[in-house]
């Protein structure tokens, strides 16, 4: 059957109530919800569903581990804004999803996970490959469903999609017993429509609050906008930009907020927090007003909360009422969708002269630049910062970059400048190593015409390296940059700073990644000096298939600045004043 015929046949189910098996209802409902790609791994309890898959216009990506399926669905959602879908069987298949689900939960990513389960007759009997996955995932999902009857399936799935994408988005799991997949029921897509979405009853944007916020902004001498992931999720890029420009307010970004405000914009201060640049964190500590937009004052952003921005009033604009006053007390809370709140706030804001404050911040920037490794002459050594800077320069900043977790993630955030939303995909909240490669596969599936780069450390890459085979099987073009320093770098850095250089369990032996790629039929090359970077990146970009670059970078380089956990935001470990390029015994 041609794909057009396939899609017509399946679309007929959406308009005419038809008797279908639960398995068919599953896919028909997904088609109705607009799903075109799923990431999964078959197994006994989900086999009826896989048996019916070929009848529907859905592309299935076979993963190598279910964690990969969850990260792919996550990356797909982050790149496209659509709901990502992962499929797994019961028991170990389902539990393997958990890390990926928790990753999506902590970063508010819309995702629906489908798991098979044993037949309803044997639920709770410790049957083969049975696990109570709704119980296991209860704290890491927005909601989950256990469906044991085919007639309940369509409604549960449609409800799951509504929950995943509404309000503050998040992952939802639908666990379907094998007999529910095998039984038949009348499928009526329209009738299975969920009840109207109920906004959180504690949303509250009052006239008095808006007026108070506007007055604080008018009167502020040293205001800073803190832009978070909510800017992107709420599509409030324009509104934030208008607010910043109209009132001349500089903008600091959270890690997940990067791309929500153009990096090249003169009011952009870059990333704040633990590895934020000194000027951003000093600006926040000196500020008399913080306007928090779609962010949650995470501990990596605030440092010690008892010393955080003590001179500043705080306006907190946030869609989740449970975030208000959780970490930092708000003086004015506007609880609602960010774009909508800003639309109401903007007419109350008129031109404001912020030049004195901007000048103060600019002077702090100048002092930092001389310490920046990027501005030091090439000594033949390769620093991760160079790799990031060159990657950004060569790709024109236009690629989707998917990072793993650790030092390279922070260097990426510092040196790769994101102009547009959804161009940086990274696990911020949970900090899941092994995220990058599978998430990049998901991102590429969502944005087939975009250039996609994986940036991963040698440690994290090995956690999910099996997905290299998925790339090959799916014939997708992804470029992979491994930042290889032979250590679990961020942990080593903590050991260096806080555990007297006791490098316990952080030196890491890795396979020859070039050969590993070769074994998969993926082209690859190693890069040892800065001089080779440009040529290598160009080779990767111009090669039609996937390409892996193994960047052999400085072994004991650290991410600066750094605020030790629990310290005040201004108590940073700064970049070393001495020449960080000096020769050391263990250098190559």
């Amino acid at each position: 059957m041609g794909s057009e015929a396939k899609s017509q046949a399946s679309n007929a189910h959406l308009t005419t109530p038809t008797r279908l098996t639960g398995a068919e209802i599953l896919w028909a409902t997904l088609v109705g919800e607009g799903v075109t790609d799923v990431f999964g791994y078959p197994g006994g309890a989900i086999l009826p569903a896989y048996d019916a898959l070929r009848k529907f216009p859905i592309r299935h990506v076979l993963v190598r581990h279910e964690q990969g399926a969850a990260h792919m669905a996550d990356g797909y959602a982050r790149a496209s804004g659509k709901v990502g879908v992962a499929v797994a069987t019961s028991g170990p298949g389902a539990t393997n999803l958990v890390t990926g689900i928790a990753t999506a939960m902590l970063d508010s990513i819309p995702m629906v996970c489908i798991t098979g389960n044993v037949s309803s007759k044997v639920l709770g009997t410790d049957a083969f490959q049975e696990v109570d996955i709704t119980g296991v995932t209860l704290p890491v999902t927005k909601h989950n469903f256990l469906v044991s009857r085919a007639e309940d399936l369509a409604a549960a799935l449609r409800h799951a999609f509504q929950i995943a994408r509404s309000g503050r988005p998040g992952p939802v799991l639908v666990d379907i017993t094998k007999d529910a997949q095998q039984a038949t029921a009348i499928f009526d897509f329209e009738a299975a429509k969920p009840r109207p979405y109920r906004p959180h009853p504690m949303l509250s944007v009052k006239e008095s609050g808006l007026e108070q916020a506007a007055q604080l902004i008018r009167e502020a001498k040293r205001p800073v906008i803190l832009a978070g992931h909510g800017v992107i999720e709420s599509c409030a890029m324009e509104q934030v930009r208008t607010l910043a420009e109209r009132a001349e307010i500089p903008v600091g970004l959270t890690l997940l907020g990067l791309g929500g405000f153009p990096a090249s914009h003169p009011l952009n201060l870059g990333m704040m927090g633990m590895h934020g640049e000194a000027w951003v964190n000093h600006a926040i500590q000196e500020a008399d007003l913080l306007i928090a937009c779609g962010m949650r004052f995470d501990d990596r952003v605030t440092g010690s909360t008892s010393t955080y921005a003590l001179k500043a009033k705080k306006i907190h604009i946030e869609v989740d009422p449970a975030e208000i006053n959780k970490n930092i007390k708000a003086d004015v809370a506007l609880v609602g969708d960010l774009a909508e709140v800003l639309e109401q706030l903007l007419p109350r804001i008129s031109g404001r002269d912020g030049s004195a404050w901007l000048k103060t911040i600019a002077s702090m920037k100048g002092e930092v630049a001389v310490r920046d490794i990027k501005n030091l002459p090439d000594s033949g050594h390769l620093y991760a910062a160079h790799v990031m800077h060159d990657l950004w320069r060569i790709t024109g900043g236009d690629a989707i970059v998917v990072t793993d977790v650790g030092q390279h993630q922070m260097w990426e955030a510092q040196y790769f400048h994101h102009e547009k939303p959804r161009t940086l995909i990274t696990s911020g909240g949970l900090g899941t190593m092994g995220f990058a490669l599978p998430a990049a596969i998901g991102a590429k599936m969502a944005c087939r015409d975009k250039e996609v780069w994986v940036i991963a450390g040698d440690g994290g890459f090995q956690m999910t390296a099996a997905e290299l085979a998925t790339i090959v099987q799916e014939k997708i073009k992804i470029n992979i940059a491994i930042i290889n320093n032979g250590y679990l770098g961020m942990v080593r850095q903590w050991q260096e700073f806080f555990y007297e250089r006791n490098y316990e369990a952080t030196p890491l032996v890795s396979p020859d990644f070039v050969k590993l790629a070769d074994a998969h039929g993926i082209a690859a090359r190693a890069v040892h000096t800065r001089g080779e970077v440009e040529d290598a990146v160009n080779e990767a970009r111009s090669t039609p298939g996937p390409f892996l670059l193994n960047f052999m970078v400085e072994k004991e380089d650290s991410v600066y600045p750094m605020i030790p956990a629990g310290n005040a935001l201004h108590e940073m470990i700064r970049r070393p004043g001495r020449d960080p390029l000096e020769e050391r015994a263990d250098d190559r």
Partner: protein
Amino acid sequence: MLHTFVAYVEDLPGVLTRVASLFRRLNININSLTVGRSEREGLSRLTLVCEASAEAGHRIRASLFKLENVVDVDDIAQAPAVTRELALIKVAASAQNRSQIFDLVDVFRARIVDLTSESLMIELTGVESKIEGLIEILREADTKILELCRSGKMTMRRGHHTSSVLKAMGAQPEGDAEEYDAPGKATRKGKAIELE
């Protein structure tokens, strides 16, 4: 401080776990929890009492609302409300000391609901202190308590306006109005007055 949350939740499998799990995650012990049918079709009403900081009340209520199966949440806190608990107490009693227990039961306006030659069962309704009082007196009187069963607290706001009526009228339950605008200043007016 002691928080009393009253919630309407969907009458479905697993809903109680979702509610309880939220408190477990915050490492808050649930002092008492009662669940039963409500006046609303398909919805159960639960009263949950726990010890948590004053600021935690807002966040717990907001988090409860985030649960898909939770329809309505009220944080009673110090608002005027009627709170009751039911206790069934089985004590050892023979013909010799029965009359003494009958007297106590009278004073506490409790009832004897079961009587055998060796034991009797007392049914008592009231506020926590009243129930604690009878138990204490029984113990002091060297009466052997064979079994004790307490329902946990049930709470209902006083007055005509229930929390859901207030919401329908566009107002918010007491204390909420100020919570967002002036954190820390949100003091609760009124003190519970118990009218028997």
